[in-house]
C-alpha cells in the first residue's frame, strides 16, 4: 500500500561556496538534519530546483520550507520561491549573527571556534523554527545528544524520491496538485469518503478559498477516473 511521505520541514541551505557564511549555512543545516531534528526534516540540494524535474520542483509545495542564506543575496529563499513555492521561514545569517553577537568563521572552508559557536546557535535556531512550523512543543534539552545517537543519522537529500505532480484543468487553467496519486491510492485502500479525500488533498496543497469548489470538483473527477482505471486494469 502506498504511504504518503510524513509531513516534515524542508531545509534549503544556500551552501554558498564563496563565503564563510555559506559554509555556516551548510554546516548548521546538516547539524539540524542529522542531530537535532533528524525525524522532522528533509533537504534538497538547491541547484536541483533548476537541474531537476517537476518532482523536485514540487518540494516546497509539499513540504513547508526554511531557507538558510549566507548573505543578503538570499539565493536559497529566492530560488525556492522562484522554482517551487515561497519558503515558510527564512534565515539570513549575517542578520542572525548580528542579533546574537556571534561571529562567522574566518575562512569559507574550515570551521574555527567562533564558527562552531555560530553553527551551534544557528542549528538550534533552525530546530526551533522547525518545531514552530510543526506546532511541536519541547522541553529545553539540557544535554546535547550523545555521539552514538548523532552518528546514527546521516543527512541525505530528497532528490529522486520526489513528490508526484499532477496537472488538472481547474477553473479554466492548468494547475499543479502534488501527491495526488499517493493520496488516491491510500484512500482507495482505506475506503474513505470523498469529503475526507478532499481534506487530505488540502493538507498537501495550498488551495485558494475562492477556488475551493472548482478544485473539489476536479479532484473528485480525477479520483473517479483513477478508481475506474484501477478496477479495469
Amino acid at each position, binding site marked *: 500500500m502506498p504511504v504518503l511521505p510524513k509531513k516534515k520541514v524542508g531545509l534549503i541551505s544556500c551552501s554558498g*561556496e564563496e563565503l564563510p557564511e555559506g559554509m555556516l549555512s551548510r554546516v548548521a543545516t546538516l547539524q539540524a538534519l542529522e542531530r537535532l531534528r533528524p525525524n522532522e526534516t528533509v533537504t534538497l540540494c*538547491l541547484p536541483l530546483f533548476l537541474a531537476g524535474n517537476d518532482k523536485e520542483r514540487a518540494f516546497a509545495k509539499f513540504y513547508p520550507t526554511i531557507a538558510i542564506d549566507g548573505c543578503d543575496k538570499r539565493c536559497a529563499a529566492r530560488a525556492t520561491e522562484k522554482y517551487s513555492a515561497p519558503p515558510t521561514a527564512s534565515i539570513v545569517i549575517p542578520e542572525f549573527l548580528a542579533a546574537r553577537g556571534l561571529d562567522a568563521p574566518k575562512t569559507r572552508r574550515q570551521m574555527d571556534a567562533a564558527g562552531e559557536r555560530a553553527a551551534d546557535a544557528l542549528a538550534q535556531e533552525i530546530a526551533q523554527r522547525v518545531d514552530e512550523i510543526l506546532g511541536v512543543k519541547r522541553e529545553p534539552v539540557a544535554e546535547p545528544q550523545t555521539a552514538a545517537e548523532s552518528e546514527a543519522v546521516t543527512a541525505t537529500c530528497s532528490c529522486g524520491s520526489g513528490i508526484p505532480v499532477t496537472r488538472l484543468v481547474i477553473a479554466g487553467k492548468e494547475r499543479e496538485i502534488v501527491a495526488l496519486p499517493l493520496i488516491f491510492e491510500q484512500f482507495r485502500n482505506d475506503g474513505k469518503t470523498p469529503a475526507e479525500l478532499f481534506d487530505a488533498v488540502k493538507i498537501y496543497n495550498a488551495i485558494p478559498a475562492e477556488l475551493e469548489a472548482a478544485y473539489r470538483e476536479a479532484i473528485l473527477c480525477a479520483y473517479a477516473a483513477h478508481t475506474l482505471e484501477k478496477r479495469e486494469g
Partner: protein
Amino acid sequence: MTDSKKRVVIMPCSGIGKAYGSVGREAMYQVVEEMRPDATTTTCLSLLTLGDADAQALVREQPTITIDGCPSACAKVSVEAVGGKPATEFRVFDVYRAHRELKVRSVSELGEAGREMARLLAEEIAAKVDELSK
C-alpha cells in the same frame, strides 16, 4: 572572486545531501586555495541557479570546470543553462570507480578516505587547469 579576469572557474555542485557533493566541494577548495590559487576562482553555484548577472558572465567568459556529485549533474546543467560551456566536466563517481577502496564516511565528515578521494580529484583538476591556462 577578485581579479577573476584570467582565471579558470572551478564550479562544484552544491550537494548538501550527498557525500560525493562534499568531496567535489573539498576538491575545489584544494585547487582554488592551495594548488592553483593564482590561476583559479569559484563562485556560489546558487547564484548561477538564480541567474545572477556577474556569476553568469563569469562562467560564460572564463574557461569553466564543473564537478558533480551525482548524475543530476547540477553544476554542469546550471552552467549550460546560462550559456556557459564547461571546458571539462568531472564526476566524483569516476574517482570512486578508479579507487573502489576509498569509501567516504558521510556528507558532513569525509573521513580519511573521502579526503584522499578529494585530493586525487584535485590533482586531476589542477592538471586540467594547467592545460587551460597555457
